[in-house]
């Protein structure tokens, strides 16, 4: 049996404002195994981002338990590169914060950047890079601290369609090659189907897992190839019905 990296057991979370109390999640149970790419889809406003904040340990559940074996790296909708730092300084940011800013780790992070085509841009500022390259730099920054699980919060939704397809393939390729575990949150069904090994469908608020599917693409990991395959539309239709049914 594979090692579990992340596990939610019967998690409930309530939000408090002066006016009311909102249940964001109730009886939420699922797990992510090592090396797995799990996508979570749900109706809008079902608390998808909340789920990632819980996984990252930024929120504490009202009840239930969350166990995470290892560190996490967060990737957001926008690249959130710091404009006053060079690409290299941006990539080294998690090392500075985690006090693991050793020469060895810096060299590893730099090597990663070079490996994935950012070598020429290390001393450039984010404003000099295209949207796709910026998102790639954001991914390398996330990988620099060698997290055990990547938490991806709709990381492609801010890009235009053409760039999105390319960057999705690009990011997926990097994550697969580095053998990383990933939890992707998205509202885009086709993105989930083209990327994940397993898809969880959430109910509307309070969120819990309504359906769970192992995708049968076999060895086809490339999102662009998956989009061309026969199963793609089958899965798309099924998930569409489950989301809207």
């Amino acid at each position, binding site marked *: 049996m594979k090692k579990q990296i992340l596990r939610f057991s019967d998690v409930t979370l309530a939000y408090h404002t002066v006016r009311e109390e909102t249940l964001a999640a109730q009886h939420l149970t699922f797990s992510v195994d090592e090396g797995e790419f799990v996508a979570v889809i749900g109706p809008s406003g079902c608390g998808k981002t909340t789920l990632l*904040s819980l996984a*990252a340990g*930024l929120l504490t559940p009202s009840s239930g338990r969350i166990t995470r074996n290892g560190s*996490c*790296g*967060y990737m*957001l*909708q*926008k690249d*959130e590169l*710091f*404009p*006053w*730092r060079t690409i290299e300084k941006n990539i080294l*940011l*998690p090392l*500075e*914060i*985690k006090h693991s800013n050793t020469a060895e780790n810096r060299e590893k992070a730099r090597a990663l950047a070079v490996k994935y085509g950012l070598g020429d*841009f290390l001393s450039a*500022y*984010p*404003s*000099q*890079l*295209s949207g796709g*390259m910026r998102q790639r730099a954001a991914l390398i920054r996330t990988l620099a*601290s060698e997290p055990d699980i990547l*938490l991806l919060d709709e990381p492609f939704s801010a890009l235009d369609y053409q760039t999105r397809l390319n960057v999705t393939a690009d990011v997926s390729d990097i994550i697969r090659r580095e053998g990383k575990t990933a939890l992707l949150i998205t509202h885009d069904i086709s993105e989930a189907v083209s990327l994940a090994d397993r898809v969880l469908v959430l109910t509307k608020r309070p969120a819990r897992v309504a359906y769970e599917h192992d995708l049968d693409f076999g060895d086809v990991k490339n999102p662009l190839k998956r989009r061309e395959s026969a199963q793609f539309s089958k899965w798309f239709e099924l998930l569409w019905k489950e989301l809207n049914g």
Partner: protein
Amino acid sequence: MKNKSEKTYSEEHLRYLRARRYHAIVVWTLRIGLLALLLGMWELITALGWVDPFLTSSPSRIFATLKSLYNDGSLFYHIGTTLWETLAGFAIAVFLGYSVALLLWWSETLRAVLEPYIVVLNALPKIALGPLIIIWFGTGSKAILFMTVLVGIIVAIMHMLSAFIATDKNKLLLMRSMGANKWTILAKLVIPSSLPSFISMLKVNVGMAWIGSIMGEYIVSRAGLGYLIVYGGQVFKLDLVMTATAILCILAAGMYFLVVLLEKLLVKNTDD
């Protein structure tokens, strides 16, 4: 990626660059021409006797006043006095204002407690405190310095606090997800991302510092440009009033220019 080191330009691009340069030259020529025209008209209508230079002064009389102030050695004494009060007040107001804003950013409770006080202090016309300041600090430079700080500090606090609070929520989330504590967030995100606001606060405070120091000199002083203006007004020496005002214009513009220079040095890479 933008290529900034383009080597060859097309004919069209060269024409565009020439047009831009031509436009800049026209603007500068007109700017200087307008100043020369205004000064020339001023000189002319007083020389022709259309207006009484006793009431309006004139560029040549301002120049003569400047020369006599220089000759009796008081020109740089007055300039120095006001400049010192303004710069010291500016520096103290900026430093204290920035520090208080940091404290208020750090503690939400402190912010809530002090908010009404800051609002009231901001709305209060500082000149109303004139008599108190004279009694507490006497009639020397100290009183003027206090007035300058008072006028500048509230603006500095409010400006910087709103900049600190406006720190990008997603970048904060990112920092926290990396395990950053509040000190690290402050040092690596909040302070660097508020740098453009810091510069705009300096620009606002250049004006505030001059308001403070001149207002202070109106109330208590025995030296300085504000003193020359008040004194000149009282004894009806409009030449003196105009001369001191002209020097003030030049000094204030110079100080603003220094801040702009600082901005060019510090603020290079932003997303917008």
